[in-house]
């Protein structure tokens, strides 16, 4: 049989579709601009959204800027980033580079159809303005242009038009400013929307001010309940390589100082509509909340394809549900940038651990090895990638099998939970006994419930141990544990009824007899 071979082509519109639809949320698109600024050694990025109508977005950073030639190179070959050709670190601040394939600028295509870029490169005495129009390339005609064999010189696949003009600029200034207009209607509408209202849930009000106030205002339930703009703030703050709120992520946890320090050393700030963002992670919500930190989830592994996986992380658990709910799960950060949001399944942990998942939060800083596993949306992973599988295995092992303390995190949590439950039970029992003692003696009397043998010559009051009950230091022999509460109750009734007519010594005698009776059971 004759074999026929034929070329495989892709419509040009695929590129346009990609440029317009890579990111799932508004924050996903803006996150790319922040990452670009981080890679360009910017100290700060200022974003304005045009809140409350979201008609114009702007993003300005004081990074190294671009020359017109560099801009043309980036826009002329989307996906052909050369950022890491000269190393893994940025030129001036030696930051680990985030960008890898050069599509960050295209994220703007998700926000608007028309934008202007103003930039001046470090040391240059010129600036440029580039006006980019993506609109014509989202039309149906673009679907008829084929990629592949027709990618000859004269049939380039165009995603947009760009015009560049130059003007003088002070050589001391370096920056990139992007002004986005003609905002895609759905994008602006999404930011104005309150999605929970659609399902009949009253949207909650939140404070747009400083991050601590914002966090307090969304911490009762779920950030999503506060609308899409609250989610935008949340996602940007959680994922960007910025500092934690002071004291964060975990209060009084010096073992995490190295993580805090690495972010501080970047000296990188992001402002959204005038407010400086900080990672809104500050746990436990109050120091009185029972909690536990597993501070050293560190891992290094050489992979078969020559890559090396390097992880630094921690897991936090608290007795109560973690709120807002968006913090329940593990957040993987690749080169300090959050990939997606917290994963409540812990990378697909195979066993059902019930309520524990809602009480845990963790971060895994992956410094090496995982870049290639990130999908193009930078919000999810290719789950068949060797590095991802290694990370998954490591996490599962720490959760299920072993920790620094021996047992797996889940077992440790279970033990901690039992311990807390036991302590609570002891406290409750003591309270109950105290109330009973008050009934017996007509006034409150101190009651202690001890786990050990009582001291000799115990002071007055009722003392109950698993093996004995003492009244005013006198041992009431042999009341079994399971009858202690019942015994005390009977004592109370008798005491109440007889206190007026029977002297105290007689009543104690009666109790002794009763104790023997219970002991005989």
């Amino acid at each position, binding site marked *: 049989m004759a074999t026929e071979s034929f070329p495989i082509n892709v419509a040009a519109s695929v590129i346009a579709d990609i440029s317009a639809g890579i990111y799932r949320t508004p924050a996903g698109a803006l996150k790319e601009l922040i990452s670009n600024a981080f890679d360009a050694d910017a100290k700060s990025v*200022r*974003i*304005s959204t*045009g*809140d*409350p*109508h979201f*008609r*114009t977005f*702007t993003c*300005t950073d*004081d990074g190294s800027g671009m020359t017109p030639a560099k801009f043309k190179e980036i826009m002329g070959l989307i996906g052909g980033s050369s950022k890491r050709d000269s190393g893994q670190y940025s030129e001036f601040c030696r930051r680990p580079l985030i960008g890898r394939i050069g599509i960050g600028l295209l994220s703007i295509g998700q926000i608007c159809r028309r934008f*202007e870029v*103003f930039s001046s490169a470090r040391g240059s005495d010129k*600036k*440029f*303005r580039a006006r980019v129009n993506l609109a014509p390339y989202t039309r149906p005609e673009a679907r008829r242009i084929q990629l592949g064999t027709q990618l000859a010189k004269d049939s380039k696949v165009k995603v947009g038009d760009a015009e560049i*003009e*130059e*003007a*003088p600029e002070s050589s001391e*200034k370096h*920056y990139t*400013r992007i*002004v986005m*207009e003609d905002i895609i209607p759905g994008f602006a509408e999404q930011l104005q929307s309150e999605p929970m209202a659609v399902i009949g849930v009253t949207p909650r009000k939140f*404070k*747009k*001010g*400083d991050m601590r*106030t914002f966090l307090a205002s969304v911490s009762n339930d779920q950030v999503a309940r506060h609308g899409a703009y609250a989610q935008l703030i949340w996602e940007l703050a959680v994922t960007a390589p910025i500092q934690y709120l002071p004291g964060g992520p975990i209060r009084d946890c010096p073992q995490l100082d190295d993580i805090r320090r690495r972010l501080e050393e970047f000296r990188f700030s992001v*402002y959204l*509509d*005038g*407010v400086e963002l900080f990672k809104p992670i500050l746990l436990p919500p109050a120091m009185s909340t029972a909690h536990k930190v597993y501070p050293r989830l560190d891992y290094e592994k050489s992979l078969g394809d020559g890559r090396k996986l390097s992880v630094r992380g921690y897991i936090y658990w608290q007795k109560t549900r973690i709120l807002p709910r968006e913090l329940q799960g593990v957040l993987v950060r690749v080169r300090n940038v959050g990939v997606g949001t917290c994963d409540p399944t812990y990378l697909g942990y195979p066993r059902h651990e019930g309520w524990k998942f809602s009480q845990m939060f963790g971060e895994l800083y992956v410094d090496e090895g995982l870049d290639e596993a990130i999908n193009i949306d930078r919000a999810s992973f290719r789950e068949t990638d060797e590095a991802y599988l290694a990370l998954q295995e490591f996490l599962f092992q720490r959760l299920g099998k072993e920790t620094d303390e021996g047992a797996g995190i889940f077992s440790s949590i279970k033990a901690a939970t039992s311990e807390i439950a036991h302590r609570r039970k002891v406290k409750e029992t003591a309270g109950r006994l105290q109330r009973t003692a008050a009934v017996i003696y007509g006034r409150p009397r101190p009651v202690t419930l001890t786990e050990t043998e009582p001291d000799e010559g115990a002071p007055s009051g009722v003392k109950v141990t698993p093996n004995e009950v003492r009244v005013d230091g006198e041992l009431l022999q042999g009341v079994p544990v399971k009858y202690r509460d019942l015994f005390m109750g009977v004592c109370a009734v008798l005491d109440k009824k007889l206190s007026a007519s029977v002297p105290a010594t007689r009543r104690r005698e009666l109790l002794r007899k009763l104790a023997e009776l219970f002991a005989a059971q």
Partner: protein
Amino acid sequence: MADFQTIEKRRQRARSTYTDLKKHYVRITGWLPIFGQYKTGSHHVRYLTLCAKLAIDIRYFRSKGLLFFDKQQQSYPFVTFIERDSQDYAFIAESLGRTRLPLKGDLEEILLNPADYPKEFKDLSGTFPHDIINLDFTGEVVRPADPPYNTTIRAIEKIVELQRKASCKRWHMFLTFRVRRETASGGADDELRRIIESNLVNEAARTAYGTRPAPMELRAQEYKEFLRIGMAKFLAGIAATQDFTFALDDSYYYERTSPEGEKYYILTLIAGFAAPRSSSQLQDPRRAVVAYARCVPQIFMSSAVDVVARLRTAGESERITTDLRPVLDEVEGLGVV
């Protein structure tokens, strides 16, 4: 759209004026007391401004406690600003934080072509009424290439109309523009001259007009005074048609030189508008006519403050410099790009 180099030259010019003491003199002596009139008790001043890149006016009035700023939320909930230049808009929006309405666009285009800018017009008109509207134009209000009834004039009319539609009882407009006889519009000037001349048939107005040269000569000899009276009269006319009374509270002028060496004046009018009737009264055209007739002599009797002369007064420059310093420090701290 203008080419990039032209835009940059214009921005460069605007930037060089932000430390201008003459402009700040007008802020202190003209604008500040008016803000004080509106900031009473729990009422916050509702402010619409063409604030330009550094938004000195917003920062200054905030620093004086006259413009409400929610520090915790980094928000100016009673400020609306409009800026057409992309770079300047970005800087204002990013450095101020949230405002009641940040609007990128051309004020005149938006107001006069609502069909082309439906969303922008809706957003902008939704912010009315304002207590103070600061129209600090960088250019002339009567331009040589435009017809006398040009877009700037029509935009001002539209603003007064929007204030009336929003049932504003009392408000002020600060109108600042460039005056240069060499580049003025002959047609517009002729119309302004005719308006002034028509008023001079009235005895009271003629007396108030005083010893000034006749309008024709005034235009030739004292163009800035001619335009000051003419524009004030024009505003008074608009006020009357929109059922407002008008008062020219103050006016200021000072000289400037362009980078090309051309001399021109900056003229600022501080105009008060008030509804002559309560909401329960019927509209009475006679009331507006009477109010207009009353304000004409007041305009003719007024005189503009020569800012340069005032700054020559001992200690005045130092006082203005000291007053402006905190705002300049704030602006410089922003790391302007």
